[in-house]
Structures are given as C-alpha cells and as structure tokens.
C-alpha cells in the first residue's frame, strides 16, 4: 500500500517537473526573441538619425564622417523586389501545376522533395553557384546577378509556402468548376488563384522577407557600392552587407551606424511580416468560405 502511494506521488512529481521544464523552455525560446529585439533597439536607436535613411555615404563615411545608408536600403529593396518578382513568375505555375495536375502522385512527391532540398541549400552555396554562373555567361557583379541569385534562394520558399496553402483548398470548389466545363488551366487561373490569394500573398511576402535579409548570396553576386543603383548592370549595395561592412571597421561611430542599419533591417523585416498577416486577413474577406 505504502509503495503504491509512493509511486503515485512520484509520477505526479515528474509530471509537475516536466511541465515546469516545458514552460521554462517556452520562456527561453520566446525570451530570446525579446532579447534580440531589445539588444538591437537599445544599441541601434541612438545612431538612427534622419540622415541614415535619407543620404548615401559621403566621403569618409567608413571613417565616421557624414552620410547614411540610403544606397543600401534602396539596393536591398531593388534586389529583393526583383528577386521576388522573378521567383513568382516560376513558383506560381509550379504550385498550380502541383495542385491541378500532379496532386499527390509520384511526380508530385519528387517535385516537393526537390523543393524541400532546394530550400535547405544554404545561401552561401547559391552565392558560389551564382558566381560560377556569372563567370560562365560573362556577367559582372551587378544588380541583375543579385536578383537572379536571390530568385533562386526565394523560389523554393515561395513555392513550398504556396503549395502548402493551395493543396489545402477544398476539393469541391475545383470539382464544381470542372463540372461546369472549365479546363484545368481555367480552374487554376480563375478559381484556385483567386480563392487562395491570401495564401499566395503570404508566400510572396515571406519570400521577400527572406530575400531582403539574405547576405551570403548577394556577397558574391551583387557587389557593393556607395551609389544608389541606377542600372541592372551596375553593382548595388544591400542592407545586410551594409551592416556587415560597417561592423568590420575599427571606428566606434561607424559600428554604431552598423547597429542602426541592423535595426533598420529588422524594422523592414518585421513590417513585411506584420504586413503579410494584415493583407492576408484583409483578402480573406473576399474568398468563399
């Protein structure tokens, strides 16, 4: 009897202990987000001046003289915008083809596997590949090269995210359209794309956020310049590399501005993330429930 009671107590103690550990883990994981944001805001905010976002680097910028990172902000927007657009051209057809023609077939599985594998390839490898590609076709480090490589980085993210929402679309909508005599292409274009628009927008913005923060792939391919990009064939600055290079200097003022640039990048990424929630919530009103 006594032993039974003892065991009974022990398993409940274990239960309580494990629950405590789990709550602690959750606090640690969530807390690390808080810590990151706190560190970036506290260290970045003091150096975040109006000049930072309205001016390009002036002479001696990397030694602490005046200027800002407008070149990098615009460069990043161009790079990620172009990359996202290019990735969208390919990923929407792939996601639609997976849904309307391949479904859960053997080929569907191969394509999904290959997308997951592509997603896992690190951006430094995409950068190295992009570099060999540039050598092969005689392209210099430029906005165009950066856009192409970012499109490669973003393609699997966007396609897989789209695929995840599109494959969950209720089958009856598709079947109703097919029963009315629509071709599959029309179903894909007029039914799936419209019904799944919120999910598609979320996928596009997710990929954009990933693209704008990526440093390792553009390091090789987009180059860096203090000028605002004016042509696809010219090199361009990017915000992640601006952070990286400013922290690499020995001057505290410049490092300060590096923290401010990191804060700017964080703000952009958070805006994209919240924006995608808001937009998809808004668009959800126009879908068939």
């Amino acid at each position, binding site marked *: 009897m006594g032993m039974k009671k003892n065991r009974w107590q022990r*398993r*409940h103690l*274990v*239960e309580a202990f494990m*629950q405590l550990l*789990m709550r602690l*883990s*959750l606090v*640690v*994981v*969530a807390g690390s*987000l808080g810590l*990151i944001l706190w*560190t*970036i805001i506290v*260290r970045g905010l003091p150096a975040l001046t109006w000049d930072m976002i309205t001016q390009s680097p002036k002479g001696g910028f990397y030694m602490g003289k005046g200027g800002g990172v407008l070149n990098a902000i615009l460069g990043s927007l161009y790079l990620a915008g172009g990359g996202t657009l290019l990735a969208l051209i390919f990923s929407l*057809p*792939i996601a639609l*083809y997976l849904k309307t*023609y391949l479904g859960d077939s053997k080929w569907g599985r191969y*394509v*999904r*596997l*290959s997308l*997951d*594998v*592509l997603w*896992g*390839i*690190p951006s*430094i*490898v*995409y950068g*190295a*590949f992009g*570099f*060999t590609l540039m050598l092969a076709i005689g392209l210099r480090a430029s906005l165009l090269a950066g856009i192409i490589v970012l499109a490669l980085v973003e393609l699997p993210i966007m*396609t897989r995210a789209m695929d995840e929402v599109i494959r969950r679309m209720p089958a009856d909508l598709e079947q109703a359209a097919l029963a009315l005599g629509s*071709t*599959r*292409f*029309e179903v894909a274009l007029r039914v799936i794309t419209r019904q799944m628009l919120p999910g598609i927008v979320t996928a596009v913005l*997710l990929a954009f*956020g*990933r693209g704008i*923060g*990526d*440093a390792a792939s553009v*390091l090789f391919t987009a180059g860096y310049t203090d000028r605002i990009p004016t042509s696809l064939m010219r090199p361009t600055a990017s915000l*992640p590399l601006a*952070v*990286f290079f400013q*922290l690499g200097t020995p001057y505290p003022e410049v490092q300060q501005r590096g923290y401010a640039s*990191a804060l700017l*990048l*964080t703000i952009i*990424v*958070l805006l994209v*993330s919240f924006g995608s*929630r808001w937009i998809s919530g808004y668009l959800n009103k126009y879908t068939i429930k």
Partner: protein
Amino acid sequence: MNELNPSAITIESEGRDDRPSVASQRSRRDRSARRVFSVITLLPIFLIVVITLALVARSWPILSAYPLKDLILGNIWKPDDKLFGFWPFIMGTFWVTIVGVLLAVPPCILVAIYLTEYAHSLTRSTAKPILDLLAAIPPVVYGVWGLLAIVPFVDQVLAPFSERWLNNIPLFTVNQPTGFGILAGGIVLAVMIAPLIVSVLYEIFTTVPNDLRHASLAVGATRWQTIRSVVLPQVMPGIVAAVVLGASRALGETIAVLMVVGNVAKVPTSIFDAAYPLPALIANNYGDMMSIPLYDAALLCAALVLLVVILIFNILSTLVLQRMLERKWA
C-alpha cells in the same frame, strides 16, 4: 450533308464557326499551358542537378590535382604555397553545428510537446507568431546580437564559470579569453534553428491520433507518462529527422556564425576555442579568389563539400518527414 444547298452551308458554318472554335481555343490553351507548366515544374529538380554539376566542374582543377584524402584530412591551409587542407574548417563546421544542435534540441522538443499536448489555444496562437518572427529575423541581425550580447556573455560569464569549475574536462578548457568561438557561434545557431525544429516537431506531434492519448489517459497514466510511453515512440523517426534538418540548416549558416566564431584556421580542442567553419572560409575569401591559382577551385570545392553533406542530410530527413506527415492525411 453534301446535298445541302451552298447558301445554307455558309449560314450554318457561320453559326457553327464560333462555338467549336472557342472550345478548341480553350482546350488548346489548356494544353499549351499544361506543357509550359510541366516544363517549369521540372525546374527545381533541374536546378539541384545543375548546381551540383557546376560546383563539381569548377572545383575539378583541385580535385584532380590533389588526392581527396589530402584535401579533406590536410591540416594546413596556405593557398600561396598551394597547400589546401580542409580539415580545420571541416572540424570547425562540425563543432559549431554540434554545439548549436545540442543546445537547441532539448528545449525545442519540450516546447513542441508543450504546444501540442498542454498549451491553451491562446498560448498556441501567441507562440506561432513569435516563432515566425524568430525565423524571419535576418542572419546578419543574429550576428549583431551575437556580437553585442552573446560574445560578452561567453567572455564574462560562461568562460570564467568554466575556468573555475570545469577546467579539467577536455572540451571545456578556456584557452583564449575573448568570447569569440564555438560556444558563441553555437548559441547563436541554436536560436536560429529553433523555430524550424519546433515547427517541424509540432507538425509531427499532431500526427499522433488522439485516440491513443485518450486510451492511455483513461487507464490512469499521467500526461507525461502518456507522452513518454505513447506519443514519443510514435514520433521517434520524426524527431531524428527534425534534428537532422536543423543540423543541415546550421551547417550552412554563414554570416551570423562568421561574426562571432573567431575565424582561426586551427582544429579546435575546446568549445571556447575559435573555429573557422567552411561557409565563413568561402565568404571571407571570395575577394581574392581569382588572384591565386587554384584558390577559386578550392573555395568552390568547399562549397561542394557543404552542398553534398547538406543534400544527403536534407534528402534523408525530408523523406522520413514526408512519410510521417502523410499518415495524418491517410
């Protein structure tokens, strides 16, 4: 039909002209869209093959000039003297990844269990955006955080602690007191891969049918007993796959690790040592790689090594995960 008078035929064909042609136009468009889409859909598979082949081709000069054993196990990296030994970099990558994964996995498993088995739906719906935001933060921002918070933390708290209490244990010796090193890189990596591991584990845990949990709870097991003896055995392969997936993500992480790991090309002997992982090697030296013979081949060979390991890890874990997730829909 041939006997019909010509004027009637023209009228009729005018009438019929529209309808069949619209239908055939639609089906023609459907067919050509299908053809175009199917070609585009092969793009991902094509890309994997092309990326691998391109890296093999570009690193061929060095692969053919040195035996593979000398490249991989070689200890000395002096491109000017034509010495290309990857071993310090391979070990650097290995240690940073291992430390990151070991730090990330236990809390991630606990969080995933908590979210599936215990959490209130409100907790669950707040945890998801937090994890999404963690995943959305760019690597370079993680690097800045590591530089500002983790490196000083290692330097001022963990290293003195280890020096005081763990100094006789081989892997915990403090040889260089800067804070930059494997431990700092591992901590940053752990936070970076946590959202991925948690979300994959969460998906996996939800595939376990509730009936199993109810049966166990009904005979008097506590919730933790149910998890340990009913849920966990069901999802074990999925947990392993999630960990491997996290490791493969950690292997290739470049900028964030590069900023805190110290970048010293020596085989590390302690988690407080500086290391020089492969991605950092590639990123730091891309600038001079065209100026020294074989250097570009060596760096692209480093990228190839990374790619091959990651491809293997990814394909294995994805196959396991796909199989486990299909169970849910079946």
